[in-house]
Every structure is written in C-alpha cells, then in structure tokens.
C-alpha cells in the first residue's frame, strides 16, 4: 500500500482536520465528532440538509457543504457508514428550526445508522425527513433484496435539494424535489483497478491486467460482468445502454450528464468517454442541458468511472443552476 497518510487508523480524523483547515471561513467541525458543518450552521429558518456515509469518496460528502447545498456531512470510517450518534450530532448541528432532511445512499449500513439517528432526533422533537438514493442500475431493484445502490447521482440530489432548502422551502417541499431527482436519476459505473482501504492495507479486489469490471460499486462491490478491457467508445456505449434499459428517456427529453471519475482515472479519459456519451445521446435525440465531468463521488484510488443521467424539467433545471458555494460544486 502506497499512500500519503500517517496512522492508517486515523485517516478520517486527519482528513477532517485538514479539510476544515483548508476552508476555515466556510467550514467548521463539530467538536469531538467527525461532523463537518457550514460555518454558519444551523441556518435559522432554513431546512437543514445532512448527508454523509463512509469516507473514501471525497469530495463526497463534506466537499458539498456550503450555501446552496449541504449544511452538514457526517464522515464514517473508510467505506463504513457513520454511527447513529454521529449522524444525530449532524442533525442537531443542521437544525435551524424548520426540520432536517437526510440524504442517504442505499446501503444497509447507511440506512440503518441514519434511520436510528432520525429516531433519536425525533425523540428530541426535531422533525426529520429523508430520501434514499438508489441510482446504480448495475443492481436489480427487487423488493426481496437490498435494492439498487446509491452512487454519483447522490451529488445531484445534494445540489437540487440544497437549492430548494436554500430558497426557504418547507421540509416537505425539499423532500418532494429530492424524491423527484431520485425517481429520475440513474448511474452505471465500471472499474479498471481497485482501491485500497488504508486500515486493510491491500486492494479490495484484483482485476487482471487486461480486465475491467462493468457495474462496479463505489466500495468495490462487484458488477455485472468482468471482461476484457474495451475501448472508451465501447465502455461509454455499454454504460449508457444499461441506463436506457432501466429507465425510459424519450426523444427530446432534456438530461443532465455526469461523467464521474472514481479516483485514479485522469480527467483526460473522462473527457474521451464524454465525447462518446454525448454522441450517443445526440443519436437518440436526447437534449443535454448540462454536463459535469470530474471527480464527484470517488472510491479511494480506484481507476474507473461512472456515467449518470438525470431527466430534468424546468423546476430541476432552475434548482440545478441556483448558486452553490460548496468547495466541490460551484456553478
């Protein structure tokens, strides 16, 4: 394992301190927690937005804190959901009296811990609502199983729900648009190499030199198929077609595109992929409203990428374009 770290068991603490030290005028850490909050949190009279999850997905989640996006992000250990008490601290720090909205990615651990935190908060009289993001079409959405995972689409939920909350909307209104995003966003990823959890010290899985895996999750969860590495155009086609199999995107529909790097993949490759994605969408008669290319939801130093498509209407478009001051999402 080659990493720029100190003690592998203290990477999250070190990171949180280094993060707040980078943006001291924008962020603060809630003392004795791994909860990072807007410097001015709680914002009175605004619905508080709380997200979080395991660490190792940077800039998710703390990079999305700022006016127009999140109020708090709760950082768990690497790839491990934060605990209910920590999430509860985040809820309290975000609570400006108008209720708190939780953005949860659909993993058993995240759901359990955030739900328990919500119960603790409600017991203290804080109104809590939530959305469970499940954009990853690599996983079957069956009621008998855990269901689709939450991946890069989560960032668009942060943005849109955040803009809604910033506008002074009610908790129900925030939930309504968050649900709308979740209903309309789908993603699909692929990996060329695995990342290494610092405390584990070795790669989470191994791919051969000529192998890739389609449909991988952001914690190294397996995908649909492990196969011979293909060209960027073929990869783009496979990821986009998988999304179209899952969700109906009619001709003329406007979409937002996110080409997300998983950690080690250079931006050059993301742009090469984007070229083909845009051409595929054009061929299908889909209108691209806005494109995001970069590292939004990573998996440590995994090489690979994901493609996210979000169907947008006028409301989502205007919320998407509302200002954001989060370090990792400026527009």
């Amino acid at each position, binding site marked *: 394992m080659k990493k720029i770290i100190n003690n592998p068991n203290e990477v999250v603490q070190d990171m949180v301190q280094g993060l707040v030290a980078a943006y001291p005028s924008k962020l603060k850490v809630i003392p004795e927690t791994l909860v990072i909050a807007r410097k001015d949190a709680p914002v009175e009279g605004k619905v508080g937005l709380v997200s979080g999850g395991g660490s190792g997905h940077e800039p998710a989640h703390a990079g999305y804190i700022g006016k127009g996006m999140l109020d708090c992000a709760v950082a768990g250990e690497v790839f491990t959901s934060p605990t209910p008490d920590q999430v509860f601290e985040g809820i309290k720090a975000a609570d400006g009296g108008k209720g708190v909205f939780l953005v949860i990615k659909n993993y058993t651990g995240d759901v359990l811990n955030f739900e328990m935190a919500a119960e603790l908060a409600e017991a203290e009289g804080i109104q809590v609502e939530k959305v469970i993001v499940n954009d990853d079409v690599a996983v079957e959405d069956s009621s008998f199983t855990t269901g689709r995972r939450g991946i890069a689409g989560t960032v668009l939920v942060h943005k849109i729900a955040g803009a809604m909350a910033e506008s002074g909307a009610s908790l129900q209104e925030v939930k309504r648009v968050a649900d709308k995003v979740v209903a309309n966003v789908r993603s699909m990823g692929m990996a060329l190499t695995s990342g290494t959890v610092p405390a584990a010290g070795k790669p*989470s*899985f191994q791919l051969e030199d000529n192998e890739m895996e389609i449909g991988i999750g952001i914690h190294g*969860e397996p995908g649909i198929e492990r196969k011979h590495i293909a060209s960027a155009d073929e990869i783009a086609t496979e990821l986009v077609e998988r999304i179209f199999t899952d969700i109906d995107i009619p001709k003329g529909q406007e979409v937002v595109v996110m080409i997300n790097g998983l950690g080690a993949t250079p931006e050059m490759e993301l742009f090469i992929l984007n070229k083909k994605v845009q051409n595929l969408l054009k061929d299908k008669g889909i209108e691209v409203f806005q494109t995001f290319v970069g590292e939004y939801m990573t998996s440590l130093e995994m090489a690979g990428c994901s493609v996210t498509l979000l169907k947008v209407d006028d409301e989502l478009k205007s919320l998407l374009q509302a200002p954001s001051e989060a370090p990792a999402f400026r527009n």
Partner: protein
Amino acid sequence: MQLNVTNTVQWMQKANEKMQTNKDYLTTLDQPIGDGDHGINMARGFQEVASKLEETTYTNVSEVFKDVAMTLMSKVGGASGPLFGTAFLKLSMKLKGEELVDQTSFGAALNEAVNGLKQRGKAEEGEKTMVDMWASIAHYFTDNEHSTPAGLMESADAALEKIKAMTATKGRAAYFKEKTIGHQDPGSASTYFIFEALAEVWKGDSKA
C-alpha cells in the same frame, strides 16, 4: 449456565481478544463478498467495549449489555454496528432486573435479540446474515435442557457450515448473489467468535 456481572464482563473481554486476533481473518471474509471492513469495524468496536467495561463498575448483567450495546452502536458503524448494538440492547432490556441469568432467561433474551435483529435489518432467517448465527445460538439455548460449552460450540460450528452454503439476499453480500455460496458470512463469523468467547469463559468458570 449462569451469567453474573463478573463472567459477563469476562465474556466480553474475551470476545474483544478474539476480535483483535481475528481482525484480519474477518476482513478477509468481507473482501470477496463485501467491502473488506468487517474485521476493522469489529476490532475497533470491541476494543472500545473492553475499555468501557474496564473503567465501569456494574451491579447487574443488564447494565453490562447496555454499555456493550451503546458502545458498539457508536463505534462500529456500517451495517454491523446498529445490528450488534440492537442485539445487545435487546439482551439488556429482556434481562433487566435479573440478578443471576440462567439458561431459560438467557434463551428468552436471545430470542428477543433475534427478533430485534430481524426488525432492524428487515431480514429473515436463511438470508445469510448474522441473523442466522444469532438464531441458531438462541435455538441452542431454548431447545436443549442442559446446555454445555461443548454443546454450544458444536451447534455453532454446524450453523457456520450451513450459513456458508447459503446465498446472501441481504446486506452488501446480496450484490454477489450466487457467488456468495461457499463464502462465509463475516457477520456470522464474528457472532461465532462472540459465543466462542462465552463458551471458553463458561468452561473455565466453576460458578457458571
């Protein structure tokens, strides 16, 4: 069997030792069909449990389990944190007020723990999760009139074999579907170590 404050604390300390020793093993189990953090999570959590019990004086078993529950809940994270937390919280609640815990009470408390796990995890038996191991342990104490350390381990070993052959349909392992067959469920393995610790303390404790 009989649980009192002393041997319950010993049990938990022994469980911690096992988590530290088997940290890498549990992580290895979690790599092919999970995200490779289970050993790290459990070792971190039980280390904190050990410290907490070390520095606290208890007057009954229920209180011990309550601290175990709260510590696991706040230090483990992931799926297993709230689940183990729930299980021990249910033990604590069911055993409230009991001076000495006998096999009947313990069996009843374990049943509560299993119910709590099922509810929290929205899981049933047979889904290749720690529910299966907890359920088999509960069955052992409720179904056998005279429980013994050796009997407990025999039944736990058998459960481990059965679980290994299952297909996961809950938790992160569910993404691997049929590929989980033949792989051990990490949460069941750590549960096994917890009860192996009980068996060892119980065997060495004349009063138990």
